[in-house]
């Protein structure tokens, strides 16, 4: 027989003013299994808690019901007190006599009757409570940051500076990401390279950071604190330990006409190449698809001329497995290809370019050394039309959302153009100007008012070529939709920001959820913006949604803080309110039939298969297994399970059944 104690709190007048607390205590004392019941002015006060502790000891209670305020308010308090008195904290339940009773009903017998019922529910429940121990999960204090753009760089540095080892994985030959391609950055117009490069170098030099460029994540197993990441290190075909980055190989490489991705195809590179001058690491890669040796097994110019004999034609991809405790996803974005715009010439018109190309044209490190020359004939364009929202907020293009950064960089582009081509005319077509951000609107105003960029509110219906010039047809909605036609030398499209092509695939590999546009989804839109719904995996930057640099850096630091917070604990301790799969004596072993339908239902991928083996090691049956490190205790699987083979600690079938049997 249970020995339950019931403690009825007056909460001053809050409860006692409406509920006959003495009657509740008296009724409680008459309930089967209740050996002690009392009422007191403030149970949460020191004297109240002391009474509770004393009675637990004196009456050797094995269950406690505190009838007071909402458990959401004081459950932790009273469970701690229970623990201090030597009783397992999970043998304490609360009946909500305040928020759910005294505050919402009038004084009277019906209210007191309800209060008694609420107590009875908890008494019946607590009789079935089990002593539970918090779940402890070890943590591998090493983070994996996926993506070496500014988001990844920032997150890696913050985590590393807190003293934790970091693995920074970047799939291209150098870190830096899109930011390294940018010319100047809004709203300050400081040079992107100048602020980024030091950070890149810091990463390379940081004792806590292991940099794996030209590498990709292939598989992720495990759970928070205990992931196993399988990483493919693509063969650079050079021995990085020998290469000193002198660059001779690039100069001597006979194949030089390969469109340079870093420069958005505005320049060429050689078959063996370093993506850009400030690349980190400054080590070349052989582009096997273009290299003469790999096509004809002749040449080997680089090998012959390499002063350190670092060339390794026979080098193979390497697979490495790393144990990490947390992940930060910083895989960034892509922009919508110009080819997606039939109305703007399918990308066939050489002088219709996207923002990224313009960045390279405007960049001092770019193919034109920063001079604005149009791609077709290298002439400085006299009139440039900038089209904002190229694809963004356009359901027809499958992008209903706002890409967020375009308004700002379009203003920046127009401004840079006006600075670089004196007398040049800049026209911007826009839907709305969204310049929310510190000194953002001022920046746009400056473009219009100081730099004389002309803004036309309206969409561009068509861009086509007519006798060597681009004709831009649009409307000016501020002039009542009056058609506008502009003859321009160059058109710059602020193309929509989209998720990476392989974002969906990666999300599935990592079991993180993603939105309809394949941006990774945060665990909670308001309260958990840098976490995913998979514990231990965090988000930074534009892989979650379009973001500008300051936001990205802020979020990266946020994600880093989450990781450091996780790593700051000796081990992971979690509330034991988790699902458990029944195990019992042979021959049944478990009432689980192993249909594993629960596996699909679990929002956290916490359920896996477990093979029950006999002494000979043969598999007798396969059953479900709940990983307590991943389970968050929602109980969806419990309600789904036909055989009741899964139960939820703290809200077990026995507990809930008992509650129901006394209503």
């Amino acid at each position: 027989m249970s020995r339950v104690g019931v403690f009825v709190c007056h909460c001053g007048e809050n409860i006692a003013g409406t509920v006959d607390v003495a009657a509740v205590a008296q009724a409680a004392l008459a309930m089967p299994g209740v050996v002690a019941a009392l009422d007191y002015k403030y149970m949460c006060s020191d004297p109240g808690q002391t009474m509770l502790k004393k009675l637990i000891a004196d009456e050797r209670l094995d269950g406690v019901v505190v009838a007071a305020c909402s458990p959401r308010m004081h459950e932790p308090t009273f469970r701690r007190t229970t623990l201090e008195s030597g009783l397992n904290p999970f043998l304490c339940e609360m009946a909500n006599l305040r928020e759910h009773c005294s505050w919402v009903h009038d004084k009277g017998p019906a209210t007191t009757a309800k209060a008694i019922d609420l107590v009875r529910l908890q008494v019946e429940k607590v009789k079935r409570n089990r002593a539970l121990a918090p779940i402890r999960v070890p943590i591998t204090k090493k983070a994996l940051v996926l993506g070496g753009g500014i988001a990844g760089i920032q997150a890696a540095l913050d985590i590393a500076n807190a003293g934790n080892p970091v693995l920074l994985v970047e799939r291209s030959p150098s870190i830096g990401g899109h930011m390294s391609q940018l010319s100047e950055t809004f709203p300050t117009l400081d040079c992107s390279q100048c602020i980024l490069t030091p950070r890149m170098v810091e990463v390379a030099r940081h004792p806590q950071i292991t940099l794996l460029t030209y590498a990709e994540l292939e598989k992720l197993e495990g759970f928070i604190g205990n992931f196993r990441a399988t990483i493919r290190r693509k063969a650079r075909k050079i021995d990085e330990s020998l290469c000193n980055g002198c660059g001779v190989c690039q100069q001597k490489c006979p194949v030089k006409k390969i469109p340079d991705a870093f420069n958005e195809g505005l320049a060429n590179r050689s078959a063996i190449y370093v993506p850009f001058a400030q690349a980190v690491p400054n080590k070349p890669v052989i582009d096997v698809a273009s290299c003469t040796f790999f096509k004809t097994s002749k040449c080997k110019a680089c090998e012959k001329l390499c002063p350190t004999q670092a060339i390794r034609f026979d080098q193979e991809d390497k697979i490495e497995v790393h144990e990490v405790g947390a992940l930060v996803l910083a895989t960034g974005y892509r922009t919508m290809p110009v080819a997606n715009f039939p109305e703007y010439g399918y990308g066939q018109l050489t002088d219709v370019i996207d923002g990224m190309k313009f960045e390279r044209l405007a960049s001092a490190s770019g193919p034109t050394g920063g001079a604005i020359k149009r791609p077709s004939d290298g002439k400085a364009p006299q009139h440039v039309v900038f089209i904002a929202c190229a694809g963004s907020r356009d359901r027809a293009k499958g992008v209903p959302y706002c890409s967020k950064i375009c308004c700002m960089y379009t203003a920046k582009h127009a401004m840079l153009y006006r600075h670089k081509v004196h007398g040049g005319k800049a026209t911007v077509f826009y839907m709305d100007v969204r310049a929310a951000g510190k000194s953002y609107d001022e920046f746009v105003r400056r473009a219009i008012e100081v730099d004389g960029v002309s803004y036309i509110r309206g969409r561009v219906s068509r861009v086509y070529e007519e006798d060597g010039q681009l004709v831009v047809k649009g409307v000016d909605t501020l002039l009542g939709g009056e058609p506008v036609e502009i003859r321009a030398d160059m058109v710059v499209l602020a193309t929509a920001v989209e998720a990476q092509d392989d974002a969906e695939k990666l999300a599935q590999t990592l079991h993180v959820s993603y939105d309809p546009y394949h941006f990774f989804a945060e665990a909670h839109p308001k309260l958990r913006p840098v976490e995913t719904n998979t514990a231990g995996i965090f988000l930074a930057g534009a892989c979650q949604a379009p973001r500008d640099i300051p936001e990205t850096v802020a979020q990266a630091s946020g994600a880093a803080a989450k990781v450091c917070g996780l790593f700051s604990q000796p081990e992971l301790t979690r509330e034991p309110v988790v699902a458990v799969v029944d195990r019992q004596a042979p021959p049944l072993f478990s009432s689980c039939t192993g249909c594993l339908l629960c596996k699909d239902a679990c929002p956290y991928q916490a359920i896996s298969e477990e093979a029950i083996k006999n002494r000979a090691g043969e598999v007798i049956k396969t059953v479900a297994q709940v990983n307590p490190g991943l389970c968050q205790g929602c109980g969806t699987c419990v309600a789904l399970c036909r055989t009741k083979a899964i139960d939820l600690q703290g809200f077990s079938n026995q507990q809930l059944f008992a509650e129901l049997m006394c209503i």
Partner: protein
Amino acid sequence: MESLQRKAQELLAAGTVKLVIGYGEGTGVRRRPIFVRTGDQAGSLVLDPACTQNLATYLTKAEVRALGRTALVATPSTLRSILQLAAERQVREENLLALVPLAGTIKELTTFADIEAMVATLPDEIARADQEMLTQLGAMSVVERRAFWEKELGRCVKCYACRAACPMCYCERCTMDNNRPQWVPVASHALGNLEYHVVRAMHLAGRCVRCGTCGAACPHGIPIHLLTFASEGSVRRQFGQPGGASSRPTYALATFKPDDKEDFIR
């Protein structure tokens, strides 16, 4: 029929299978499941419209499993049951093979993919009589329906023939037999009966292949199969994920769509 007997002989002779489960002569006009393990037993295999029981039920029975690789004479429902059992990891592709009577010949299906392909071509309708009953019940007032089921289920004695005959009721420890807590009373009083049959119908929603074998099994002629038809029908109508369509888990109640449409949540 001859072709079936011949096929069974071949398979057993070649050692492709150790067992052929089919239908044989039973009491009077009845047909009963038979377990053919040698060529000479194959002659007792019968094939006619009376052969309707869903034999997939036997695939999960330990005693039968122990006999080795099995060829199963399969009706369309049986094929669907095999797929659903596969989706729920209760049968292995390499352990079974389906024999489908098709236009006088016997089609041999060895892979789940084959079975899926075949099932996709087969009509998936319930008997007219059952359809009519469902329509009638649908037309009744909720009070009339309550009365109907109270009367029908009043005859239930919880012999569990329905559960035993159902291919999807393979659980070793049925929730009915789970007594901590005893959600559903063991006794076959009115409440125990109602709760049992509602639970069963819920558990089959999205998994039922609508073979009607449970109803046929009931010694007291209670049309319990209508209950699972109703819950399965609800799933099909609302989520379009029928039971027994695929060997991969596509259980409608283990998944969701954020825009699932209902009209009752305020």
